[in-house]
């Protein structure tokens, strides 16, 4: 047991927690933004994957991580646009559209990755973002290395949380987005364009979720592998609910999940006599318990998932 509680181990667990949370936080922010505008976003998983693939392609051809970031976000926005066109313009059921996008992205990225990377896919080492230390700050005991010894994308993530929060609660557009998600008819009547706002949010959400995928490729594994999103989009979806459609809340939910994931990795390592599946369960169990117990009754934006049309012919 002492090996879990020494400062060194705590720092390691916390660092791992944060790093495991990053892709979730980006995706959860995307979920918050799009659901606040009234579009159900079950396609987060596909957008993470699209972002990961884009990041790999960009970094591979341009040989620098920033290009990876840009291409990854573009791919995510492309996936977002599909959801916007089908879900917002044509009123196709948003859950069906989301599932379709997930399946489509899974297939197309697996196919294209073979064409692009060919045989070297699994041995590739793409350029990426390296962790760096803030001199002085990173030597604060225990939390220093956790908060001040990370790579650029971790700080980008915190910045995005702040930005989404600022946007939603402190700008006129954020107010408009919240109104559209609660009562599109009222927003329409107030002179706002419901489709434009929803397009904006869904496409921006595509870019945000894609950043989660970029992180996987550019800061964690430095290559692209099939289905590397591995269900993170769905965990992010739960974090959106747990965080009550609030960007800061969603971030906390992701951090909670990341913490238990890191903890279970550590426990697996420390208690090898226990079947590892038992520990693997831990983060999921905790999030289910949190969803059931802690939050009371979460109330989603009233219009989420519902197509808005002004008049019927």
């Amino acid at each position, binding site marked *: 047991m002492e090996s879990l509680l020494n400062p060194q181990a705590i720092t390691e667990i916390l660092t791992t927690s944060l790093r495991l949370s990053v892709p979730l936080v980006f995706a959860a922010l995307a979920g918050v933004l799009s659901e606040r505008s009234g579009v159900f976003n079950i396609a987060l998983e596909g957008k993470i994957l699209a972002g990961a693939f884009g990041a790999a392609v960009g970094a591979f051809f341009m040989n620098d991580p920033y290009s990876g970031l840009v291409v990854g976000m573009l791919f995510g926005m492309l996936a977002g646009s599909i959801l916007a066109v089908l879900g917002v313009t044509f009123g196709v059921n948003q859950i069906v559209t989301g599932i379709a996008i997930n399946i489509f992205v899974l297939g197309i990225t697996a196919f294209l990755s073979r064409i692009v990377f060919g045989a070297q896919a699994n041995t590739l080492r793409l350029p990426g973002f390296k962790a760096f230390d803030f001199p002085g700050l990173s030597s604060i005991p225990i939390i220093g290395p956790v908060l001040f010894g990370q790579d650029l994308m971790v700080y980008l993530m915190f910045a995005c949380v702040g930005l989404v929060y600022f946007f939603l609660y*402190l*700008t*006129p557009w*954020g*107010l*408009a987005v*919240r*109104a559209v998600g*609660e*009562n599109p*008819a*009222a*927003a*329409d*009547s*107030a*002179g*706002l*364009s419901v489709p434009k706002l929803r397009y904006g949010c869904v496409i921006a959400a595509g870019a945000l979720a894609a950043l989660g995928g970029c992180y996987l490729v550019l800061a964690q594994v430095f290559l692209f592998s099939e289905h590397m999103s591995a269900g993170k989009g769905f965990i992010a979806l739960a974090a959106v609910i747990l965080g009550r459609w609030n960007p800061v809340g969603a971030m906390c939910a992701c951090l909670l999940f990341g913490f238990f994931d890191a903890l279970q990795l550590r426990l697996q390592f420390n208690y090898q006599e226990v079947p590892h599946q038992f520990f693997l369960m831990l983060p999921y169990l905790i999030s289910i318990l949190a969803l059931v117990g802690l939050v009371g009754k979460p109330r989603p934006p*009233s219009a989420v998932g519902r197509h808005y049309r*002004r*008049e*019927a*012919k």
Partner: protein
Amino acid sequence: MTNYKLSLENISKSFGTLKANDQVTLDVRPGTVHAVLGENGAGKSTLMNILYGLYRPDEGRILVDGQAVAIDSPRAALAAGIGMVHQHFMLVGQLTVTENIVLGMKGQGLKLDLATHVRKISELSQSFGFEIDPEAEVMKLPIGMQQRVEILKLLYHNAEVLILDEPTSVLTPNETGPFFELLERLKSAGKTIIFITHKLDEVMTIADDVTVMQDGKVMASLPKSDTDPANLARIMVGREVLFQVKRSSHASGPVVLRLADVSASNTRGLTALDQVTLEVRAGEVFGIAGVDGNGQAELAETIAGLRPVDSGRIFLSDSDITQTSISDRADKLGIAYVPEDRHRDGIVLDESVAQNMILRTYDRAPFARFGFFNPGAIRDHAERLTSAFNVRMQSVDQEIRFLSGGNQQKVILARELEGEPKVLIVAQPTKGLDVGAIEFVQQQILVQRDRGVAVLYISTELEHLLDVCDRVGVLFSGKLMDTVDSSEATPERVGLLMAGVAA
């Protein structure tokens, strides 16, 4: 060109085969109140939605200050100085008053300066004598307050022309007076007001000009001084309207519903009903008068079983039903309840008219057989009821959302009056209905009475109440002040009781 503030020229609009507006022309003089009258489904809201840019007209044009303007969205309407308060309010309940008001305002910069808006809105609201907390969540405000928020919103956006779609149907009679004072003030501030209503006396009180519509067409447009209520009613309905239903005298039977010292609390936990004792007999219409919010809703809900009693007992033909469940009261004991907020509690907006007609009976023959719906029977049933109640619509398969406000009301009334209840509780059945429809609904209630139903008729509209009731009880702060026989119930006497002055 003449100096009209606003002109609509030859506006037409069809929904499928239905011509909701047919070559409508309307001229509004600046600084006046222009009333638009018409039966349920005549096309008033459609016309106003066109003027406000929510619907596209098939043909016709709109002139503001003599200039043709293209109004293809609410944003364009607001830019042209036209604002609208809808029949069913367009507020985001989860946002605050201020947030609702500034929503959609242009030129706000990057950061929303709510504090300044809060200050300005509270100044504006005080200058009109509204007591509104600009930071209150809209959902938690009573409906009369929400209306003020809607009006403040138009004023804050500097609208010159205010379209008010049935604003008085959500107000209680004692709120109407102050509301008209407000309209006068707006008028003297130079605003032009289009005012939709079903109440002829309101037209005579507040309007300068009147336009009457029927079946999508303008039947007449004239200054108020050239007309009178009977004339307006004739133009509107196309026949003579009796302002009084024929009520035969009728012997009532044994006591069916009895409340003994019933007390109950409202949603906030305060006493809403205070030791109410009353009896309703078979074949009797018992009226509940009172200013809105004096316990009427709680009274209806305790009898229907939606609200528990704190003390006291409720009897149905001598058996104690105080603890009986809602569904047993409705299905087994025959207590029918038509709630006041029918738009919220009575219909499913996304479903068809026919489906809404069987909300209570969907699982029974002939609508369901072996667990499957029988579409033929459901349609026939809906067609029979809608034609009996003269519901205007394209077909019974149409989503109820697209019916006019008054026609939605009729669907629920038709459904609830159709069963064969022992006790019928109706709250505000005449709200939002045109004069013809009111007459019809009241007759239906009397038909139920003559069949031996015990009817509890709750209304804040005293005249309608005195028209149909055999006895009237007056609620004041949750207490039943007194019960008066209809032969002795003069508006003056009941009015005093409503104000809490015991006889």
